[in-house]
């Protein structure tokens, strides 16, 4: 016979204000099998927990219902308390009378009635709970870091320094990401490459880091502690074990006029190329689409001149299988392009000429113009004719905060880097004038607002509060038609160069990866964290963590901080030899299973297989489903496709749910 105890928490005023807790306790006492019920101000406090423990002993309770906050909040607390008695922690259930009752209702009578119902449901459920044993799973002490930008590098280094192995994957030929493209960084104006390259080098040389560039994630299976990952190492056509990175191939390549990705189209590169001088690894890659040999079958200039015979035209993609225990996703962002050909749902800027005018550039391009390693060696020269622009107009919020273009969010970093741009521009072109069209200056951060003020006060940037309606060319000049809402006027500026702070958008190919990983994403395709406040680096897939701008627009300090946080999570995970997992897994009743195989097909984890039942003579009696408890994550999809009800799910058994429903309305 079940003996259930009900403990009703007031949560101070939080529950007590709307739910009459003493009534709930009294009503609970009337329920069949409830032998003890009580209400108390703070059940989660030490005295509250002691109360529960004492009652379990004194009344020989076989099950406990805590009516308080959400189980997502305190289930662990109370189960731990219960565990300290003789009772299994899985014989404790929570009735959520705070988040889903007292906080959302105002009528005390109805809220109390609902609270009583919620308790009754849980009493019915807990009566049918069984003591379960947590599942222990081994942990592979190796992490995968996807993405080799600053976030990925930082996470990899922190994990590696914590003495755990890291496999780092970068889809482009070199690590470094967007940060490698930047000139100086706000708010200190220190050189981006100067602070980044040492980290790139140590990521490459760290004994605990195995680096794969020009490599993508092909597939991911498994679960926390035990992921099986297949990587696709794309053919570089250069043997990275032989190549010394001398660069002679680049020099000899007859194709010289390919627009350089690293220089955002402002510079040129050959068909065989090292993306930038400080690239890590310093090994070239052949752009197959543009290579003369691959196109016409003739050339091989690079091969001829390579004295180490490192060029391998017959190289193919290579697949590498690795086992890891945790994954850090640090895939970064991409700048929104104002052109017509954009991702679905995002429109171009026809009013700004759809990016067809060479002197309307985006901020990343301007970074390259400012950068000493850039196409102009740090001199600000406009792309159309190489003239030094004397009037530069900066537009913030291009695409961002723009419902019509499909991006309603703030890109967060543009206010700061635009202020930086105006400063760096002024430092290089002393007689030049920078104008900035902005909507709001968002400069929250240490020394951030001071930085923007400096741009305005010391470096003379004129800030105009308003958007720009149209940009068009008139001879040598670009006419910028904007507004200054502070004076309530239209503003027209004849500019030499226009720089657009375009929105930070998710990586265009992030969705397939997210689906491989089972990580959620929002409508803008930024990856979803498990909790906006309390689990900012976790995802809803255990063992997979986020770092950097793949989650939302972020600046460098934030990306680095989140990367280190993700690394701490990974190290925490690796510090245990075994993981405990809630034993909510499904099991098959073989005697009634007809072996139809629906569950095998439907299982998202491929955790179910056929099992042949044979008699003593070895003759097949029948086939039934068999669930691998290690792979089962407990979603219960198999139950719903099982017609004979031959599968059940621990923790959410048919009987438990059935009696919950049955006790709903009395």
């Amino acid at each position, binding site marked *: 016979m079940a003996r259930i105890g009900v403990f009703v928490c007031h949560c101070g005023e939080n529950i007590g204000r709307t739910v009459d807790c003493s009534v709930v306790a009294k009503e609970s006492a009337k329920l069949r099998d409830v032998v003890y019920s009580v209400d108390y101000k703070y059940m989660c406090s030490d005295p509250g927990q002691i109360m529960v423990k004492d009652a379990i002993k004194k009344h020989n309770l076989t099950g406990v219902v805590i009516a308080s906050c959400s189980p997502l909040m305190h289930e662990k607390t109370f189960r731990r308390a219960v565990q300290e008695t003789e009772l299994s922690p899985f014989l404790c259930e929570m009735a959520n009378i705070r988040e889903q009752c007292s906080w959302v209702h105002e009528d005390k009578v109805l809220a109390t009635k609902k609270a009583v119902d919620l308790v009754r449901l849980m009493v019915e459920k807990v009566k049918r709970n069984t003591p379960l044993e947590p599942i222990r799973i081994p942990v592979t002490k190796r992490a995968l870091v996807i993405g080799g930008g600053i976030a990925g590098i930082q996470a990899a280094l922190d994990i590696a320094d914590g003495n755990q192995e890291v496999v780092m994957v970068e889809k482009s030929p070199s690590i470094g990401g967007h940060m490698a493209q930047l000139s100086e960084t706000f708010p200190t104006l220190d050189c981006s490459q100067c602070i980044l390259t040492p980290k790139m080098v140590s990521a490459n040389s760290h004994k605990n880091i195995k680096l794969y560039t020009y490599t993508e994630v092909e597939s991911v299976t498994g679960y926390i502690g035990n992921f099986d990952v297949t990587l696709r190492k794309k053919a570089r056509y250069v043997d990275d074990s032989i190549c010394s990175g001398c660069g002679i191939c680049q020099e000899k390549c007859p194709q010289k006029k390919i627009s350089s990705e690293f220089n955002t189209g402002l510079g040129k590169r050959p068909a065989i190329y090292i993306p930038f001088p400080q690239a890590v690894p310093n090994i070239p890659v052949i752009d197959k689409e543009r290579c003369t040999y691959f196109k016409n079958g003739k050339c091989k200039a690079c091969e001829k001149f390579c004295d180490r015979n490192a060029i391998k035209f017959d190289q193919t993609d290579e697949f590498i299988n690795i086992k890891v225990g945790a994954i850090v996703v640090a895939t970064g962002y991409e700048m929104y392009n104002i052109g017509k050909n954009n991702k679905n749902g995002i429109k171009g800027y*026809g*009013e700004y*000429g*759809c990016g067809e005018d060479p002197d309307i550039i985006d901020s990343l391009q301007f970074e390259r113009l400012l950068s000493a390693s850039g196409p102009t060696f740090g001199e600000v020269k406009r792309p159309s004719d190489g003239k030094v622009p004397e009037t530069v107009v900066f537009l913030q919020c291009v695409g961002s905060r723009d419902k019509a273009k499909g991006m309603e969010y703030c890109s967060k970093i543009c206010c700061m880097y635009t202020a930086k741009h105006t400063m760096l521009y002024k430092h290089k072109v002393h007689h030049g004038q920078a104008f900035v069209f902005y909507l709001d200056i968002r400069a929250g951060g240490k020394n951030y607002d001071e930085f923007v003020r400096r741009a305005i006060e010391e470096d003379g940037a004129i800030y105009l509060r308003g958007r720009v309606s149209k940009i*068009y*060319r*008139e*001879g040598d000049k670009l*006419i910028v038609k904007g507004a200054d809402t502070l004076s309530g006027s239209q503003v027209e500026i004849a500019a030499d160069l226009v720089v657009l702070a375009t929105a930070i958008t998710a990586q265009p190919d992030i969705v397939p990866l997210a689906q491989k990983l089972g990580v959620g994403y929002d409508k803008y395709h930024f990856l979803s964290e498990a909790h906006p406040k309390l689990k900012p680096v976790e995802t809803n897939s255990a063992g997979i963590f986020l770092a950097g701008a793949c989650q939302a627009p972020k600046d460098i300090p934030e990306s680095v901080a989140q990367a280190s946080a993700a690394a701490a999570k990974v190290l925490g995970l690796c510090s245990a030899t075994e993981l405990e997992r809630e034993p909510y897994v499904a099991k098959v009743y073989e005697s009634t299973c007809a072996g139809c195989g629906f569950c095998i097909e439907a299982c998202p984890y491929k955790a179910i297989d056929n099992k042949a039942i044979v008699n003593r003579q070895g003759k097949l009696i029948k086939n039934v489903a068999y669930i691998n408890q290690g792979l089962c994550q407990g979603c219960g999809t198999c139950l719903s496709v099982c017609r004979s009800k031959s599968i059940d799910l621990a923790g959410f058994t048919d009987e438990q749910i059935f009696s919950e429903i049955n006790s709903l309305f009395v």
Partner: protein
Amino acid sequence: MNYGYFPGCSLHATAKEFNDSTKLVCDKLDLELKEIDKWICCGATPAHTTNQELGIALPFANLQLAADQGFDTVVAPCAACFNRLRSADFEVKHSGYTAERVGYITGSRTDINVRILHIIQLFRDEYGYSRLKEVFSKPLKGLKVANYYGCLLLRPSLVMKLDDPENPVIMDELTNLTGAESVPWAFKTECCGASLAIPETEIVLDLSKKIIDSAKNAGADVIAVACPLCHANLDMRQKQIGKKFGADYSTPVLYITQLLGLALGIDPSKLGLDSHLVDPYPVLRAKNIL
């Protein structure tokens, strides 16, 4: 297929050459336009900016007339009429509340389905560029044209659905088909002030000047338009503009249908080239087109 033709008030008065050229070109292309009997004014801008119901009921009444007369498509050369007809149709289709009111005002049913096309759409979508290319007999080689779309033809783009509101190409494509060269320029979708011409003439003079300047700077010999209001402001006001700004303004402004008519070898005087205030003949002769 025959099309219900809605000329609108201007085409029966100041823009009669638009009317003539439209009819001649369509005749030549065997596109049968039949004027909607007893059509009424679409109300233009004054109606919808004074009384919303009126601004929808007037144009919608014409769609009802067209439907009653058995037309399933209405063609309007005037950008303003086209805009009002499309807008009225859009509002009635998208709001039951509006439909009910318009039904009451016009005393006629509102669940009608009439396609509304601008004349240039007729050439693009119904006749087709490939066929057009074949029928042009007299290429306008060497003529540089600034195609001026203005506002009402394109915006609101959600309702007009004619072309890209910022970088439209339809008139340029037609121009290029005639053998003339359309020049890229910045003011093709700016507004000339249209309905303000009479009450706020000065504004219109300023706006029109900027447009003509931009076209001239882009190297255009003539400006092509598809709207009688644009034409009125750009052509008729050039002398006044010249006076106001102390410069000579004599850039011919032609209707796109006149250009097409010339390319089809239609007599220029029949196309109404004589009725412009800025005489286009000198330019056309200089380019050996006439």
